[in-house]
């Protein structure tokens, strides 16, 4: 296809919009400094993507390390202390450096302003500042690894973290503190951007569901994360100076730390899953070529999950000595979260029903997400019932449950979103066959790794143990093999995506037929995205675009008048 190098605005009214530009955000300026000092949300998104990929690799290697150790009962090549450090590093790095910033900071930064037809987020400098806070947090974690490791578990429970552990707890908590502020500023930026930067015609009920999800996420980021910040500061003071607030020997209460920690960290679970649900809502609609079913229900369920998430932290503490009454109350509120979650799943299924579904890679991930998230969500109900939780607490059942939600849910949705927006981000198509194979490999590996953990957990295998009875050998071996398959799948994904940068064919502006605004600017977008904000209409009116053989992508239907959707 010929290169078209004329301003976007000059061709706006014509049939075929500009597909590629010679000068885009990737090559508008050159040199490392032009990246490190950029205020462009797209470049910041790309830098986040590189950063979290590094964190993911580190966390993944740690997981591989202890899964290999668990292949046989008894200790193979680690000491007990090293085992503790491996699972702690895996958890802390994955949670604080990968999953929480994953979708909002990397994909959200890339896509959110594009979906609004805006030139940038509301506060571009603050956005770059968030990225540097992330970098500083990552350096603190590296310092932790070099300066004595960490063996407290990612939850930093007192009194072990405050007085007993001899590892680098202060560095790690300082890192998590800084990362918290990175997350807060991203959330703040997104809230203001969604409120103030919407284009003409985009009312709240014409907001793409990805943005509803990002908005709900941002509310949690802004309201919950500061509480984690102050909790970690108090933990640092406790450890450094012995102020005693969490130390019974000094008149404090270690359970108070758990209350503070989960007041943040339970909402944080929804910081992880809401953006994933937000992505899946986009993928399901686009690849079913059908208007999303129950738009308002999906939108409001995101917000209600965000609000309910603040009222359930006590379900982490059923066996920590809180009163039976608070246990019952927390248990009851926890059940109610199942309602908005199920609303989403039913609406996705209703969207797929009688849609013209095409199983391209992003859609595969969306379907895998529904499968995995449903298992993860339903097993969550076992844990919200106090009587069963007392039995299952701190077993592999819990480990399997939250991996089905956080990895099966968030990671698979992240990969789906990455494959969906990759052509927009990089301007190249990846090898569809290879990426589907990689997706299925990762899916099989994941289930093999974590499904046996439900079984061994319900049989009583405790989590965080370096050794186990020979009865559990089969489950652990299946799990370790699954981890290796999952790892192979992820390597294939990385290979496919990296290969596309060098040899992929040029991506059209709209390769999938999406009706949201990011598909209206060329791939990759120019530095300022849109010369003028496009007029917003129903983001799920799939009739607006049609396949154009000559372009090799989807183009707007000329003169199309949108039918009224309820």
């Amino acid at each position, binding site marked *: 296809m010929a290169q078209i190098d004329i301003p976007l605005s000059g061709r706006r009214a014509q049939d075929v919009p500009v597909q590629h530009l010679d000068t885009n955000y990737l090559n508008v*300026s050159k040199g490392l400094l*032009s990246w490190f000092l*950029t*205020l462009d949300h797209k470049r910041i998104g790309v830098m986040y993507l590189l950063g979290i990929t590094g964190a993911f690799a580190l966390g993944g290697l740690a997981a591989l390390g202890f899964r290999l150790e668990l292949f046989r009962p008894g200790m193979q090549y680690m000491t007990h202390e090293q085992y503790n450090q491996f699972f702690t590093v895996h958890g802390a790095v994955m949670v604080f450096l990968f999953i929480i910033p994953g979708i909002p900071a990397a994909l959200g930064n890339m896509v959110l302003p594009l979906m609004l037809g*805006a*030139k*940038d987020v*509301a*506060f*571009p400098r*603050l956005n770059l500042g968030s990225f540097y806070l992330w970098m500083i947090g990552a350096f603190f974690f590296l310092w932790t690894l070099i300066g004595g490791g960490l063996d407290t578990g990612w939850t930093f429970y007192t009194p072990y973290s405050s007085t007993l552990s001899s590892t680098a707890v202060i560095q790690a908590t300082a890192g998590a503190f800084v990362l918290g502020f990175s997350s*807060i500023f991203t959330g*703040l*930026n997104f*809230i*203001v951007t969604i*409120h*103030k*930067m919407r284009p003409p015609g985009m009312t709240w009920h014409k907001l793409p569901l990805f943005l509803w999800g990002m908005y709900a996420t941002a509310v949690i980021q*802004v*309201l*919950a*994360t*500061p*509480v984690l*910040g*102050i*909790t970690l*500061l*108090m933990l640092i*003071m*406790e450890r*450094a*100076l*012995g*102020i*005693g*607030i969490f130390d019974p020997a*000094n*008149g*404090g*209460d270690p359970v*108070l730390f758990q209350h*503070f920690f989960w007041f943040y960290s339970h909402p944080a679970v929804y910081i992880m899953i809401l953006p994933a649900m937000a992505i899946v809502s986009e993928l399901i609609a686009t690849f079913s070529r059908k208007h999303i079913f129950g738009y308002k229900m999906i939108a409001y369920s995101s917000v209600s999950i965000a609000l309910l998430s603040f009222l359930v932290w006590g379900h982490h503490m059923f066996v920590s000595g809180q009163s039976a009454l608070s246990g019952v109350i927390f248990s009851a509120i926890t059940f109610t979260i199942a309602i908005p979650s199920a609303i989403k799943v039913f609406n996705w299924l209703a969207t797929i029903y009688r849609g013209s579904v095409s199983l391209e890679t992003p859609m595969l991930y969306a379907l895998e997400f529904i499968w995995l998230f449903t298992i993860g969500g339903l097993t969550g109900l076992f844990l919200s019932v106090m009587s069963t939780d007392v039995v299952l607490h701190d077993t592999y059942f819990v480990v399997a449950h939250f991996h089905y939600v956080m990895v099966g849910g968030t990671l698979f949705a992240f990969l789906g979103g990455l494959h969906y927006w990759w052509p927009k981000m990089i301007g190249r198509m990846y090898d569809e066959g290879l990426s589907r194979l990689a997706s299925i490999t990762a899916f099989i590996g994941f289930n093999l790794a974590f499904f046996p953990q439900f079984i061994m957990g319900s049989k009583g295998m405790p989590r965080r143990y370096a050794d186990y009875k020979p009865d559990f050998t089969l489950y652990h071996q299946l799990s370790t093999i699954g981890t290796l398959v999952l790892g192979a799948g992820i390597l294939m994904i990385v290979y496919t995506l990296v290969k596309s940068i060098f040899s992929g064919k040029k991506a059209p502006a709209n390769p999938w037929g999406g009706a949201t605004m990011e598909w209206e600017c060329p791939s990759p977008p120019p*530095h*300022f995205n849109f010369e003028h904000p496009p007029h917003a209409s129903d983001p799920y009116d799939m009739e607006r675009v049609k396949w154009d053989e000559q372009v090799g992508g989807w183009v707007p239907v000329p003169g199309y008048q949108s039918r009224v959707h309820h």
Partner: protein
Amino acid sequence: MSHDHGHGDKPFLAHHFEDEDHQFDSGKLGIWVFLVTEILFFSGLFCAYAIYRSMHPEVFVFASKALDTKWGAINTCVLLFSSLTAAWAVRNAQLGQKNRLVMNLALTIACAFGFMGIKYVEYTHKFHVGLKPGDLYAPVEGAYPEKGHGHARAVTVALDHSADPEAHDVAHEAGAGEHPVQEAHAAAPEHAADGEHGHTMVPWDDPRVPTEIKNRLKIFFGIYFCMTGLHGIHVLLGIVVFFWLLGRAIRGHFTPTYYGPVDFSALYWHLVDLIWIYLFPLLYLIH
């Protein structure tokens, strides 16, 4: 990236906003969301304070007497006045009164320095007499005021030498918490009993009170230094922000159509002030 500021005649209008109102409204929403974050940030400490104080009311009441109410009150006035000058600065910016704007910003900075100076005096004194946070706590003789604080000396701790369960009730009636009673019971069995039920109420600084119980007082200073320290850091950040504003005001950046930074910084400053309004009575004025 020479195109970052695409509005030639309006040097401070960022390229991605339509006009000055759009930019101002976005900034205003942003600062309010940030202030909500700040309130939740401090809320953890206030929550810890509430729980800690309800667990050890006698510790808080006694130890708080070591704080200097006079300096605290003066500091409250200083901060309140600085909030006035900050609000005044916003009005000056809106009306384009450059000289008054510079003056009010400078006054705000001066008050902030005054506040930090007084805090320095207070902290220095505390460190001098060994009323330091956590493990550093090592009060010297006379660290707690002796005269003119009759009320403080009336706060007592129960020394208990018998297994008599009534001792708990009596201690409660006397306003002392449960923990000191139990601790005293465990830690000082050899002290001579001189009370009716084998216990006696003595002042905190009575020589018979075991050191472990006296050291309970450090609980207060841990939370005191955390709360006022974090607040002090916010004052320091405010000083940096107001110096930045001052520099821009002198260069004439602020106009009736562009005064957002002054408005937003003043809002931040009011919050810092407001937090102190709560800290002062909670730490200095408890009975």
